[in-house]
């Protein structure tokens, strides 16, 4: 098992209660310990309203109990009315129940009943649980403080020179999670220095967005710092398949050239260089030059988006990028996305809830990254 295995179903922060929490724990333990379980999900919440009365649910539970007893199954009632039964594999009890329920619900059977296998489909089960326990939106960020000025940038430059940046280094796995089969697979690791938290720590209360070009400049400063560290021989050996979000400015720096030389051809082919949409728009000619050079050297390229609207402005096939990295938000439009970029080239980032994975699956996406998938 890799260090990333159980991370896919990390759900410690989910607002679970009672049975839902117990079921999440079961899913997690199944992944951690590799215990196989068969799971039957009965989506009562999706049944026609005529079948939604309390007595229907009670009758169903009573009918299920004797059928589940010989299989040592546990029954969980989720807050949205759905029922989930989990049992050790073999014996065919849950299949029997599923068939019986299928007959009962007739036309709606395919929507009402689902059989899942653990640990392979633990992520799908987590999606189910989360959807059942009404997600709680994170509180909006407090309004930002003073606008970033060149004086602040100079102070940050000095502070960055001597500060340890380890606390602000984000290193996140990008996982392939398919809806139907297999456990989450680590594809590569994204490395980046979190500029907002770093600035908040060094000079609190600054609004970076007030001076976008200065923020780009600061980012260039941090790029060089990160590249210099990654170019050390022991780090290069450990880097493996990785993604780096960098600015256009970094490519001509000695720090990048050192890393480039240390990586060699095979190492470069394992690295994805991500450029923000803002960098492309601020310097289209510079991006074309960067693309030319990155391709010649064998790097893969990614476009880093902050929102889906920019995707229409910078069509990935025109940019010639291999991947598009897009942060997930609950309001994202799946269909528009699928039209703009083939789903296999999309990485859904900032996935902090299982609902993001469910959303991604709907759009055909299988590459995910975010706090939910911790390394």
């Amino acid at each position: 098992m890799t260090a990333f295995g159980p991370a896919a179903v990390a759900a410690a922060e989910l607002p679970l209660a009672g049975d839902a929490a117990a079921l999440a724990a079961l899913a997690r333990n199944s992944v951690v310990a590799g215990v196989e379980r068969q799971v039957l999900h009965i989506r009562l919440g999706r049944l026609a309203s005529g079948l939604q009365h309390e007595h229907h649910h009670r009758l169903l539970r009573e009918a299920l109990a004797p059928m589940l007893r010989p299989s040592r199954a546990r029954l969980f009632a989720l807050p949205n009315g759905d029922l989930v039964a989990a049992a050790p594999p073999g014996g065919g009890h849950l299949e029997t129940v599923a068939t019986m329920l299928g007959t009962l619900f007739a036309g709606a059977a395919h929507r009402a009943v689902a059989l899942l296998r653990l640990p392979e489909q633990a992520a799908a089960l987590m999606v189910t649980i989360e959807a059942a326990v009404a997600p709680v939106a994170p509180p909006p960020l407090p309004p930002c403080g003073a606008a970033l000025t060149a004086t602040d940038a100079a102070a940050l430059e000095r502070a960055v020179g001597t500060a340890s940046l380890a606390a602000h280094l984000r290193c996140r796995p990008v996982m392939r999670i398919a809806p139907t089969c297999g456990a989450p697979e680590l594809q590569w690791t994204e490395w980046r220095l979190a500029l907002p938290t770093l600035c908040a720590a060094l000079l609190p209360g600054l609004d970076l967005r007030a001076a976008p070009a200065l923020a780009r400049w600061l980012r260039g400063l941090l790029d060089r710092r990160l590249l210099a560290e990654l170019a050390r021989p022991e780090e290069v050996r450990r880097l493996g398949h990785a993604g780096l979000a960098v600015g256009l400015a970094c490519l001509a720096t000695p720090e990048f050239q050192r890393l480039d030389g240390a990586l060699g051809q095979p190492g470069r082919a394992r690295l994805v260089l991500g450029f923000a949409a803002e960098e492309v728009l601020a310097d289209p000619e510079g991006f074309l030059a960067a693309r030319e050079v990155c391709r010649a050297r064998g790097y893969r390229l990614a476009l880093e988006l902050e929102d889906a609207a920019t995707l229409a402005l910078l069509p990935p096939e025109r940019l010639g990028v291999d991947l598009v990295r897009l942060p997930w938000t609950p309001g994202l439009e799946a269909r528009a996305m699928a039209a703009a970029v083939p789903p296999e080239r999309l990485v859904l980032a900032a996935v902090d809830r299982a609902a993001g994975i469910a959303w991604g699956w709907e759009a055909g996406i299988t590459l995910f990254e975010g706090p939910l998938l911790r390394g």
Partner: protein
Amino acid sequence: MVVNAVLAPRTPASPWHGAAGRLALAARQALLGAAGRVALRLAPAGPHRRRAVRLLLQEAAQAGGGRVLESAAGELLLLGVTAAEAARAEAALSHCAGGPVPGTLWHLPQDAAPLLAWAEAAATPPAEAGVACDLASLDAALAMLPLGQVLVRREVLRLGPGRTPGFALRRMAVSRTRLAAALGPLSADPDLLDHAMDRIARRLAEAPPADRAGAAPPMLPLPLRGDPAEAPAPGATGVLPLVAAAGAALSLPRRERLAAAGWRLAIGGLDAAALHLIALGALPGEALLLLRWSPALADRAAQQALRGLDPERLVLTGCDGPEAFAWGFGRGIGCFAGPAVEALVNAARSDAARVAGAECGG
């Protein structure tokens, strides 16, 4: 996990400085083994172009065993590669720049004398007329900078075959060259120069300069953030750089606020390179688009990008001659600006003055 071991404190690397001091020496050294090789010198360019050029030259140097040197004036020299490698680099440069990039090719050793003469001269930094400021005092320097030093007034003419020329807009633009000259070495960084442009745009938006009465509606740069004051005149157009399209600067609420303050929106920074990358249809439909002329606009990619776009939305800027006008007329574009337009305006004015003078004298 490497997380905690990776980033121990260290001194930041010094910013990339040109190798001006080492130029003549390096040129002499390179000449020793450079028989059959070439040197390619690129003319000075703005910081964005220079960054792209440096990157492509470094790539060529790495591939062809040469080196890249930079003069104090911002010229870049690719030294000691084969003629084929230099030709590849030139092709890549013109592809990215959307047109030929002016350069000089020296064959070695026969062109050693002009190369060395250039290297000796180029190593001396030019007399710096800029404000001597460091990053910490950049914003203060920008707040004090006399606007007249960096602003240029340009006419936007309505032109077309068989129609009487007319003034469409009177553009007040911040000259990147003049701003860079005013700020000195700091402005060699493209991001810092962009920041400076935005600060000047903010000053203009807070207090739009008055223009003479009766002139065409003004066109002014707009800052990326904040709400500008009321438009200074009916029909005033505010120009945002292309980078605004990525974020809040062109969000619907902000566009509504700009419109409520009387601004018509324009988006600048479009050129052949940008047309290779962006879908114009995704830019706000009400915005005027400033397209910078270069012969590369005749490329298929550029033509394709412009297909379906209402030519009334386009202003062709940087027009330097009849080729630009012909291309614009062919696309149905009606508004033009640039040196060739200024020349037209000046010629018309001196004609008018001569006529007036003749009338007074007669």
